[in-house]
């Protein structure tokens, strides 16, 4: 096994093409239920990758990520319902709105550290959810949410089956993946890592920490907005449930379970938090109990995650 992994690492292109081919072919022999599961996996992988920018790269706690997901979804839904803008055209606006709120919320709290930041982001998540429940400005439809949203039409084709939507999400997932990988190996990505390693030293070396942290928040939030818009593209109903605290926790777990700051880790995390629970639905409530046991065991045995980034493993193991 280890040998195989080693060999796969040495031929990265073949490895990537193989995985992509697998992702394209996988849903074909499956029924619609499992295709929908794969679609959900894709959505949460995008959410995980976006949160990974904030939590993994810049090392900032964000436990209100679902709020931006919901903002993206509601933006798309509202624009479609009130102004009859085709869903496809609402996607960029969803991204911008979520990114704008990401800026708005993070700007005044960037100087907060670790746990304090965490509390503010939880509060923001709840504020968004309650605002949606309370039918803010009379447009969000209260606890029932909004329904009657159009179907997605892409290049004249109406996306109807789960398979269509799966491929749509897969396309954006691959784009996200490419972008995130490039971000990681760039001047900005290094700035995030300098901040995570030692913020004082980073500042003293001339890294504008406010700039870097803001960008992490804005990019992460905007990307979550895109995931929200993609959700609306398949499910024509949005409700405040999208912004539930547990959703934020699941996203956070996706990042931490697989290995903070690691891109393959996000996929492992999504598999563990979304795909497997969905497949083992027949276990009913036992599912959640096993989930909890697995999480606790893992945090004791392998705190750096299942597929950690080389660097973070060292950071965590060092403190022991």
């Amino acid at each position, binding site marked *: 096994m280890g040998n195989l992994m080693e060999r796969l690492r040495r031929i990265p292109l073949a490895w990537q093409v193989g995985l992509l081919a697998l992702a394209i072919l996988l849903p074909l022999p499956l029924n619609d239920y499992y295709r929908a599961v794969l679609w959900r996996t894709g959505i949460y992988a995008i959410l995980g990758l976006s949160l990974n920018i904030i939590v993994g790269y810049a090392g900032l706690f964000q436990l209100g990520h679902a709020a931006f997901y919901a903002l993206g979804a509601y933006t798309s839904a509202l624009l479609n319902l009130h102004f009859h803008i085709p869903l496809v055209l609402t996607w960029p606006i969803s991204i911008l709105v979520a990114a704008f709120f990401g800026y708005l919320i993070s700007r005044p709290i960037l100087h907060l550290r670790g746990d304090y930041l965490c509390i503010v982001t939880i509060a923001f998540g709840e504020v968004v959810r309650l605002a949606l429940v309370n039918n803010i400005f009379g447009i969000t439809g209260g606890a029932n949410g909004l329904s009657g949203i159009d179907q997605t039409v892409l290049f004249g084709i109406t996306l109807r089956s789960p398979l269509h939507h799966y491929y749509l999400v897969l396309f954006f997932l691959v784009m996200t993946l490419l972008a995130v990988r490039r971000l990681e190996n760039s001047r900005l990505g290094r700035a995030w890592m300098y901040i995570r390693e030692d913020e004082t030293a980073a500042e003293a070396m*001339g*890294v504008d920490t406010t700039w870097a942290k803001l960008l992490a928040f804005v990019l992460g939030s905007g990307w979550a907005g895109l995931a929200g818009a993609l959700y609306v593209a398949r499910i024509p109903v949005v409700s405040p449930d999208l912004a539930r605290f547990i959703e934020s926790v699941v996203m956070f777990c996706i990042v931490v379970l697989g290995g903070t700051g690691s891109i393959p880790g996000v996929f492992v995390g999504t598999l563990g938090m979304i795909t497997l629970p969905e497949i083992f639905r027949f276990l009913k409530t036992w599912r959640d109990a096993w989930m909890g046991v697995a999480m606790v065991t893992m945090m004791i045995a392998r705190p750096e995650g299942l597929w950690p980034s080389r660097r973070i493993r060292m950071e965590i193991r060092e403190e022991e």
Partner: protein
Amino acid sequence: MALLEIRNLTKQFGGLTAVDHISFSVEEGEILGLIGPNGAGKTTIFNLITGIHTPTEGEIFFNGHRIAHSPLGARKIITPVWWLQWVPVQSVRERWDQLRTLRPHEITELGIARTFQTIRLFKNMTVLENVMAGVHRRTRAGVWGAIFRPPAQRKEEAFIVKEAEQYIHFMGLAEYRDELAKNLPYGHQRRLEVARALAARPRLLILDEPAGGLNEQETLELMDLIRQIRDSGITVLLIEHDMKVVMGICERIVVLDYGKKIAEGTPEEVQRNPRVIQAYLGEEEM
């Protein structure tokens, strides 16, 4: 005009006065030593210069810019009015610029780079990546460049690596290029900090106990390097406990004791000064 001018600088932490009305200046092209017993306020002065602390009183000028001051406790006023910087009225923005204190990265931008007394490397990053941090302030790429990688950005990335390698080579760390910073021997970690600071191409290099923990041989090599750095046109301000280093390379020395300046002059003058001998060198055979 002096490169760095410290005027009447005071810093209080609660009831403790760490730096007490100190004034001195650093001339372009010199090596100035800052010495004094433990707790004399040396590192606090460095933190004030580099913007980590804000002074309680007094000002610091670097190359004509005021980089630190304290108008009525600037930070306290500024927190609620940061949005002033975006008011599209010239006079309001000028007022904002007077009110605010510069942030550490802006001071680095003006040309001051430093090392830390307790080594603060990015431990889990490679030597190359550490030094690349120094080049950060001289480059511009942002989100767009990172994701779309236009030719200009690729060129910039190559430039960052080339620059960093140059300073790694200068500090004699070439063979450790891809080693993690934390795996370097102690003496090399000190050198790496200097390389990282130099990569920012500062006009003023601030070294906080660069010879701390080094052996005889390493110390001699370091002294030589500091001289070379000065000869390349960089002004050096350093704190050092090792008297051989201070007396050997500094052209001028400022002596602090309990946050006050008690002497200033050439190494010979300082060694003869009775207050210095009493406060600091008394027990040693100087």
